């Protein structure tokens, strides 16, 4: 198994989630994050002070799938999260050694 960690635009999340479901990949864990890629910095300002901030709100999806589904999964995410502008996001693939259920005693490896 692999875990796909995708950091995408918050506006695109629903689109991606629907697409995943239609592709029979229902399981997903979603986290609101702040991210910085190659994009330039933005200047924050409070009352009369100033500070540089360079992070923007993003949404992180973590999806565990069998190895064979990885390719298709990345394709689906790209299709539905892409706008073609800077800030579209990144996808990382992590190895997963085992997966278990809490409700049952199921436990699968590999």
């Amino acid at each position: 198994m692999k875990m796909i960690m995708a950091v995408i635009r918050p506006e695109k999340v629903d689109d991606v989630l629907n697409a995943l479901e239609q592709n029979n990949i229902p399981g997903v864990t979603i986290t609101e994050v702040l991210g910085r890629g190659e994009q330039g910095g933005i200047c924050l300002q409070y009352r009369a002070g100033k500070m540089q901030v360079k992070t923007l709100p993003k949404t992180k999806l973590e999806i565990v799938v069998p190895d064979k589904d990885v390719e298709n999964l990345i394709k689906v995410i790209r299709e539905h999260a892409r706008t073609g502008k800077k800030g579209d996001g990144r996808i990382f693939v992590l190895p997963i050694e085992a997966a278990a259920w809490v409700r049952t005693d199921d436990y699968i490896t590999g």
Partner: protein
Amino acid sequence: MVLDTGATAWVLISAALVLMMVPAVGLFYGGMVRKKNVISTMMLSFVALALGIVQWIIIGYSLAFGGDVGGVIGWSLDYIGLSGIPLDGVTNGIPDILFVCFQMMFACLALAILTSGIAGRVKMSSYILFGLLWLTLVYAPLAHWAWGGGWAAQLGALDFAGGTVVHISSGFAALALALVIGKRIGYGKQTFAPHNIPMTLIGGMFLVVGWFGFNAGSALAANELAASAFLVTAAAAATGALTWMALSWINGKPNSLGFISGAIAGLVGITPAAGYVNVIGALLIGVITSMVCYTALRWRIKKGIDESLDAWAIHGMGGFAGAILTGVFAVSAICGVGGLIEGNLQQFGIQVLDAVIAVVYSFGVTFILGWVINKTMGLRVSEDEEYIGMDLVQHGEQQA
């Protein structure tokens, strides 16, 4: 004239209540936008308060309540900067200066409401210019027509607390501006889920509370009329809320945003009628206005119009319904003029005419004004900036 301290006390606090509604609109709207635009959306209302006060002092009051010029506008040179209003002037028991203050807050509120149509994409600089011009070219004339001795007043049109002046004007202006500025990027394709519903409920709570200053304060006295306006306001808010809840229940779930929207719809509906109808009329006005606004809102969504926070559906259409329903339910025992249910077709006609002209005027002039500003300095931020969010781009701030 002799001062009535009770009336003065009531109008003082009513003015403060209406003032409170202006940032409350910001809260109400702020909860419904995406997180990246919450500060910016609140700021549109906060800035409306500051702009409205300055504009009203300098020229707004003169245009609205100065000597009538041909029924269409007011003008009194000594009202410019309020210089000619005597400190000890008293009319109908309250200080003239207090009347200025009370009316001032209505102008600010109308400007805040219309930001519904441009939230999440408008440039602050253009908004400031637009705001000042809108108050001058749209709000002031409408206020003059209804309350400053203009043609509508001469005709006998009834608008107790501003259904036409505040709600039709701002609601249809929001629609016009939304059409000029265009949809938010991705509208209809992405989700635009409200980022903080409790914030909207809190904003709504203070709108409801403030509305009692708005309506019952419009009696400009602390008497039976104010009490009656208070009662009918509560009645219409309640049935408005329950009606919307029922409608959304039939079509799905009784959601809280619908409930509070219905309360506001009921309040908008009763606004022009608050001094003219009895409690039964008020209960019905709440029900009917809520149904009208609910239908309008669904129609707007179906049409894909991004009048983002529904000022048009609720304030515009609610104000329109309220103006006409005032002509239906007015009770001559209360205000000396009966409505359609008392067989007074003429008053009904006047109400329809008044409402239609207000719709046309507000929509038309706002559209032109927005169009001109859009063509010259541009109403809208760039696409990149809109993606990043208005809070960061316009204000350099961020809600974590």
